């Protein structure tokens, strides 16, 4: 458990989640979103998220 609560690991997780959140928050307040950031907004958001988790699983299999 202490390994999962390691500050550096939490930092990496936070850095990974930020791209999923910021473009949507920016869009909520009316900021124009570059085309490339559309992958973090509906309808691509779920696709991007599941693809990222899939890649994580694959690399978890590879790494150990």
């Amino acid at each position: 458990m202490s390994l999962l609560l390691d500050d550096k690991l939490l930092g990496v997780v936070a850095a990974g989640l930020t791209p999923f959140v910021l473009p949507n928050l920016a869009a909520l307040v009316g900021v124009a979103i570059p085309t490339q950031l559309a992958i973090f907004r509906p309808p691509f958001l779920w696709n991007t998220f599941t693809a990222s988790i899939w890649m994580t699983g694959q690399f978890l299999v590879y790494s150990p």
Partner: protein
Amino acid sequence: MIAMFASWLQKDLKLSPGDVARPNILHNAVVFFAMGFWGFLGDHIGRRLAIMIPAIIGCFIAPLYLNTTDLTWITIGFTLQGAFAGAIYGLQPAYLTERFPTEVRGTASAFCYHFGTILGGLVPPAVTFLAVDKGMGFPQPMLYGTIIGAVIAVIALLVSPETKGLKFTSELQVN
């Protein structure tokens, strides 16, 4: 599964370089052909199934070579694993590419791929920490990592879109 395997054979089992190389060479030889096979199957039964099936089978093969210190079983098990968990990467380029439209394909596939490598890259230090600092040895953390990774991949694929037979489009559709 791959990255820490040689460390385990060298550090824990004190095997010679030749004995460490043999299962790795055989594993990679099998991977080479198995990736083509699963890719061929992916064109017929779908991308997701062709990744999920070897991932699930790989969970049952991993204990064969990680719960023993017999080099024969290690070699047989790890070579066999090359046809399953070792070959789940074969459809990665095709499936990752097909999931997104042309305008964001490079951005999306690069982001998702490296999201996985960053989190996956944390595993070797974590396995080494559990193996050395916690005294668990390499096999158990490697086994947990392999099975947990395969289960995560299967769950993610279950809720992912199937892209077999998809026609590529450059039209970006954002609500």
